[in-house]
């Protein structure tokens, strides 16, 4: 073998192993996902995204394992026990979507004390030792009113569909909507119902309040309830208002039909279930020794009139519009927090 060939070969080897070497620090690390609920399409998509991205990462040797665990009953006590099991099993990092912002703090503190990196996302925890990838739900509510203010500057009556009563996400989105209405007093909330983020519950609640409402110009929502609202308006034979959607496939399909038939205009905003993969990469970066701020913010996934078709194409039939995050996306989110 000539010197030249040897040089070429070592250069090739360096090329193959070069990028991996930068990540080699975490190749022996094990990450666990502690998830509190799997009973709706958003959570199912979240778990599927986790599966897809982490399997690739494990196959490439970025981490040794990334195992998802879901509790059966959506109970904080059960999830606390689950986290304690993970501590015993020797995971290096725990990524958690928490049943409660405070009830898990004890178990999370134990994990931190055992030297485990804890990253909470979507359902975040208040324990200071954990990282938080939070959604700006208030901003999400406000953005709906801002959109409406641009679309119908003359204002009008709003029907608000809220989520599950007593959950902080519901309060935050609602606070954003109220703040938006205060800034744009030409809008007036004439009715408010709880749709529990479920199509059939929203349909039922809207059908019940509609007979008592004056003309409704727009419906502000929290996601998962737009199609049900549209059905209720149709059943009551009332003109279809501008209904803000929440990125579900059935909502987008309905929107597309209305757009084709009558040039219907609206927008759709929610959080991509793939946020679990963002949390995974953030945990990996922390294990890798990167400096990461404790509080990070997830970008919204917003769909507008012009990118509706493109998003519809990539959304699974019956699922939720989704994006999976890459290592580079995570690094961008980390950098933007500095």
């Amino acid at each position, binding site marked *: 073998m000539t010197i030249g060939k040897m040089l070429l070969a070592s250069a090739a080897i360096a090329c193959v192993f070069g990028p991996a070497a930068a990540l080699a620090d975490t190749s022996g690390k094990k990450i666990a996902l502690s998830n509190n609920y799997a009973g709706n399409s958003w959570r*199912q998509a979240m778990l599927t995204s986790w599966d897809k991205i982490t399997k690739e990462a494990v196959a490439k040797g970025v981490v040794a394992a990334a195992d998802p665990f879901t509790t059966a009953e959506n109970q904080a006590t059960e999830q606390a026990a689950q986290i304690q099991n993970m501590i015993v099993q020797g995971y290096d990092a725990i990524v958690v979507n928490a049943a409660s912002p405070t009830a898990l703090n004890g178990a999370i503190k134990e994990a931190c004390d055992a030297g485990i990196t804890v990253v909470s996302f979507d359902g975040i925890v208040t324990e200071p030792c954990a990282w938080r990838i939070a959604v700006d739900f208030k901003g999400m509510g406000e953005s709906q009113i801002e959109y409406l203010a641009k679309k119908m500057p003359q204002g009008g009556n709003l029907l608000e569909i*809220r989520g599950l009563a007593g959950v902080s996400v519901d309060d935050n989105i609602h606070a954003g909507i109220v703040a938006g209405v205060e800034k744009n007093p030409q809008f007036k909330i004439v009715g408010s119902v709880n749709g529990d983020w479920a199509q059939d519950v929203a349909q039922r609640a809207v059908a019940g309040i509609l007979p008592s409402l004056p003309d409704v110009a727009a419906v502000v929502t929290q996601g998962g309830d737009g199609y049900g609202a549209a*059905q209720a308006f149709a059943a009551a034979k009332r003109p279809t208002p501008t209904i803000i959607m929440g990125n579900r496939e059935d909502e987008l399909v309905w929107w597309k039909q209305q757009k084709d038939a009558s040039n219907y205009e609206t927008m759709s905003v929610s959080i991509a279930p793939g946020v679990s993969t963002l949390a995974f990469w953030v945990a990996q970066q922390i294990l890798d020794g990167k400096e990461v701020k404790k509080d990070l913010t997830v970008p919204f996934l917003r769909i507008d009139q012009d990118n509706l078709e493109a998003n519809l194409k990539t959304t699974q039939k019956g699922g939720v519009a989704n994006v999976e995050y890459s290592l580079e996306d995570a690094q961008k989110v980390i950098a933007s927090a500095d």
Partner: protein
Amino acid sequence: MNRLHLVFARPWIWSFIAAVIVWFATVLVTGGAGALGLSHAALTFAAFSVIVGLGQMFVITLGPGNIDLSVPATMTLAGTVALKLMDVQDGMIIAGLVIAILLGIAIGIGNYALIKLLRIPPIIATLSMSFIVQSTAIWANRGLRIKPPDMLASFTTSSFLGIPNIAIVAVLLSLAAWVLLERTIYGRWISAIGQSIFAARMTGIPVDGTRLVTYTLCAVLAAVCGYLLASFSGGAALNMGAEYLLMSIAVVVIGGTAVAGGDSNIPGIWGASLFMFLVVSMLNTYGFGAGVRLILTGLIILAVILAAGGRKVVR
């Protein structure tokens, strides 16, 4: 006066009185404009509660401790699997209904097998069953919403002579349940078992067979309701049955069926189902926040049960 007395002695009358009062209170706000729309919506949504309520009523009639907590999971699984099987084809509507009913039968038999063979109390047995069923539903299609066939969707959402088709289906099922309860030997048997399981056994009633049939009936009704609800709301969702667990029990109790068993009441289920829908609409119309709304709902339900239950204190 005497006749009026007779009417008020019927426990089901209270749920209807409550429903009518709440209806008026809601319509009053709108100045009478929404009367028709509200009644139409109430009939539509009450129908779903009636269908699951009927099944739960038969089970509760069996006596203390008998309850079926697998209702929501059964609805979800039946809705999911039936819609997946039909896959938007009108020709498969009957096949979808058949698979929903078969699933109901299987779940009902499973429930009673747990209760009888493993000697688990019904509340635990049906709860464990609901975990199995819910997980199967998740596994079956990962929470994806498949649209119902067009013919079925338009049937469930349209009306005949101004009455929602769904309500007509619920009335027919109620009539069948009434015949079953009042005019067949099976109806006598479940009442007898509910009043005293020991005495029923002594008189030679096939207690196990009757209970098996009752749990199966309840699961089948839940499955049919899931099939209809999924078609009505444009697709099955993994959490679609969640509302109907407490609802199925509440409409039975408010409707005047004895919680202790042995005494069931079909008209009351209708009154209670209409009432449950209307009370939420009323409180929404008056613009109460979720917290106040839930408290008031609880208080109003308590008041109706107390009014209807006056008779039982004497017993």
